[in-house]
């Protein structure tokens, strides 16, 4: 079962990377083998939990030894506008004896006790490597628990060792389509309902997008799964359009929702000013096509014109401090190109961007925005080389994820977190202004000059 699921996910026809492959490459799937001793990144369980945990009112129970939950709970910065249950770590904490005797009974008791204590609308149960290895059938336990306890208990079959974090994202999507979406009629579906797939409300940045939608009279039924409530995800099938962000992860879910409920989808991004406008236009085009009031188009254009002008005006004061500075973008996917335009508008030179997690389409867009300079497109940059780039002044600032931050900081170079652990929302128009402002703050901080002056005994003058 799980094998077939993974094989299907690996050959997803809706995936842009796959579309760019030859028939033979496609059949091989995208299961890139990791190199032992030189690998980085999370496992499939990690990816599945990232994708589902933002359902804020659900209980998330990890069936495994302590490492899986104990080492990781409440470390994601995914915001909630209400419930906090999702932030609580909960695990069956398999020990020696459980592994010898099998963990199914313990899992059932764990679900029962947790439901009795927290009364959640649903429980997500995450499979892990060790529980899979000893043959615990979590699907059967979840089914029995659902029936006996009268609460949906959803098995998430993504043990870490089946693959990468990205595969885990997709397996989470499978759990939603198999067990959650379409199980509730909200009774209030309307012509302007949408979902946003692959948006996890990192740093609470949905708050930067939601007001734009609300002003246009567009209702976000649910993000999948940022700041979501279980009941809304269960009713996601009543939306009129789906927007997929972070494209590689949940495109299969979007395709299946289209097949099953005729919901059209498009891949878009709320990172970057032009891209935000394009996303709004695409949402509206789909809604109008499906019967929403055509006047929505004009209202959207008016909003876009107003917001773009306001954003550029808000960024203008930062231009003087940013012009001529060299920025290294080390992220991947949509962000490898979507923020380039705004940086260039500030007069900055993008000296490189990483395309290691990007689709062919992402690559081409990045290349286009960098004036066709192939040299500026990087796969992974070894830390040693990156360190040299900073030391030699080939880059003045890096925008990246937390993993590479110390390469920049130890080279006494400004760094900005633009991945999941960041504390500022960068989505939408206001988000891009925030990003430019943060860059300006980072680059204009007086510590850099102070830090780069050698100590007196090394020739520095006081």
């Amino acid at each position, binding site marked *: 079962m799980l094998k077939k699921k993974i094989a299907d996910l690996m050959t997803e026809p809706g995936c842009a990377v796959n579309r760019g492959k030859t028939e033979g490459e496609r059949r091989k799937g995208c299961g890139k083998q*990791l*190199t*032992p*001793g*030189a*690998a*980085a*990144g*999370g*496992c*499939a*369980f*990690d990816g599945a939990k990232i994708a589902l945990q933002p359902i804020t009112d659900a209980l998330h129970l990890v069936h495994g*030894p*302590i*490492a*899986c*939950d*104990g*080492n*990781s709970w*409440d*470390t994601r910065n995914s915001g909630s506008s209400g419930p*906090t249950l999702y*932030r*609580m*770590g*909960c*695990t069956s*904490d*398999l*020990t*020696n004896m*459980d*592994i010898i005797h099998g963990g199914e009974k313990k899992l059932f*008791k*764990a*679900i*029962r*006790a*947790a439901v009795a*204590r927290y009364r959640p609308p649903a429980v997500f149960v995450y499979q892990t*490597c*060790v529980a*899979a*290895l*000893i043959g615990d059938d979590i699907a059967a336990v979840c089914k029995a628990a659902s029936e006996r306890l009268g609460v949906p208990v959803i098995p998430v079959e993504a043990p*870490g*060792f*089946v*693959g990468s974090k990205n595969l885990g994202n997709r397996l989470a999507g499978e759990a939603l389509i198999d067990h959650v979406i379409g199980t509730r009629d909200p009774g209030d579906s309307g012509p302007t309902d949408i979902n946003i797939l692959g948006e996890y409300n990192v740093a609470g940045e949905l708050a930067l997008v939601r007001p734009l939608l609300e002003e246009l009279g567009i209702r976000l039924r649910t993000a999948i799964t940022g700041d979501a409530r279980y009941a809304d995800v269960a009713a996601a099938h009543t939306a009129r359009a789906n927007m997929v962000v972070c494209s590689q992860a949940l495109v299969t879910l979007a395709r299946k929702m289209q097949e099953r409920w005729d919901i059209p989808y498009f891949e878009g991004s709320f990172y970057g000013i032009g891209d935000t406008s394009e996303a709004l236009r695409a949402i509206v085009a789909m809604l109008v096509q499906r019967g929403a009031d055509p006047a929505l188009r004009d209202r959207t254009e008016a909003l876009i014109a107003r917001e773009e002008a306001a954003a550029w005006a808000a960024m203008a004061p930062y231009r003087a401090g940013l012009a001529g500075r060299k920025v290294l973008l080390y992220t991947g996917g949509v962000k490898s190109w979507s923020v380039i335009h705004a940086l260039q508008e500030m007069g900055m030179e993008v000296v490189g961007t990483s395309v290691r997690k990007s689709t062919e389409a992402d690559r081409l867009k990045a290349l286009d925005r960098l004036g066709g300079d192939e040299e500026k497109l990087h796969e992974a940059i070894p830390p*040693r080389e990156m*360190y*040299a780039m900073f030391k030699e002044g080939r880059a003045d600032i890096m925008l990246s994820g*937390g*993993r590479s931050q*110390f*390469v920049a900081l*130890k080279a*006494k170079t400004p760094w900005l977190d633009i991945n999941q652990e960041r504390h500022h929302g960068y989505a939408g128009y206001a988000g891009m202004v925030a990003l430019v402002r943060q860059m300006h703050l980072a680059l204009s901080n007086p510590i850099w000059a102070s830090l780069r002056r050698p100590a007196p005994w090394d020739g520095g003058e006081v």
Partner: protein
Amino acid sequence: MATLLPTNKPFTGSPLKLSAPLGAAMAFLGMEGCQPLLHGSQGCTAFALVMLVRHFREAIPLQTTAMNEVSTILGGMDNVEQALLNIAKRVKPRLIGLISTALTETRGEDMAGELKIILARRPELAESKVVLVSAPDYEGSLETGYGKAVTALLDGLLPADGPAFKDARRVNILPGAHLTPGDIEHLREIVEAFGLSAVVVPDLSGSLDGHVPDHYIATTLGGASLEDVAGMGAARLTIAVGAHMRAAAELAQTRTGVPSLVFDRLTGLEECDRLMSTLSKLSGRPVPERLRRARSQLEDAMLDGHFYFGGARFAVAGEADFVWAVGGLVTAMGGALVAAVSAEARPHLAGLPCAQVLVGDYQDLEDAAQAAGGVDLVIGGTNARMSCERLGAGHVHAGFPVYDRLGGAHRVSIGYRGTRDLIFLIANRMIERSGHGHGAAEQDHAAAVAAG
């Protein structure tokens, strides 16, 4: 005396326990030129890595054998071999710490036997020492793994014959996982104040004290060297700190013939006095003037601080020796320890002067605190934060992990000075708590003066 109560709940809510491989990795991070390697799936490494990075705010070299479903079932020694070769080629470490996980231990591999074969047939690995530790996640917590790793390090690196020389001034120190880089630095200063020299194994103060090297280093940034370990036999005494270091201390004594002494904690007046007497006797010197002065400052801190402890209600949660040290201080200052929760059962915890010590999680802490009518302060890691909110209690950030406060690596909580500062830290949190008598009275007074 406390009863040690395991919780027999079917699930762990708001986990306190951490994984043993994470603790083992932490021990290797105190070794110079080292690259720790977890034998498990990539997630085993990623979670431990992220937690260590966030706690120390430093780059953490931690690799994975990247086990997948097939290699797990067929046996993972090919992955181990490849990982060792890749690391040796790319990073060229002096030491590789190979740590098993629940995943590979559940299947059951003869790692020791197979590692021998790999090392014999791969001359490329001759430049790096490899130390193997068995630390499955399903047994114990961070301190368990850390203790096992230090024991394995000594077992693997102590030479069969001791060093030819003896050094009457030398003291070995085996610090427990609850000691910060700042604690280790301070302990070294104390030892040196007696004219002795200290060799610390493992030494997080050399690697994770937060410093800026002038070039790129792919392995740990510093720490105890292989030579430091090899020379342990030359010392007069080995001092271990923390009950979880007992096995390592015993092994060190057996293998080197150097007597060892375990201090289960170095926080608190009596404990520090014991350390000073030991060092004084060993060095043949009286306790130096500045340490006497520090003792006197601690006495004064106890006098000024005890007002805020007496009658106050505390909850302490963390690894066993952290709870032992901090819970001990709080009660020694007159505070009531109404909820003490340890990540694992260790017999010495029964010696804490409170009704019971729970072996459990933050949920147990909340339940115990509520049953006792609430607490004033919770002393524990970042993961205690939601419990504090629900309990309406203040939070003193300490232990592991603390990733929402800066400077944790430099905090000193041992010795006279560290104990003094910990008393101040806790007392100040009590003063900040609204409704605590003195603060409110002063405000009322100030308002009355202002109103004329």
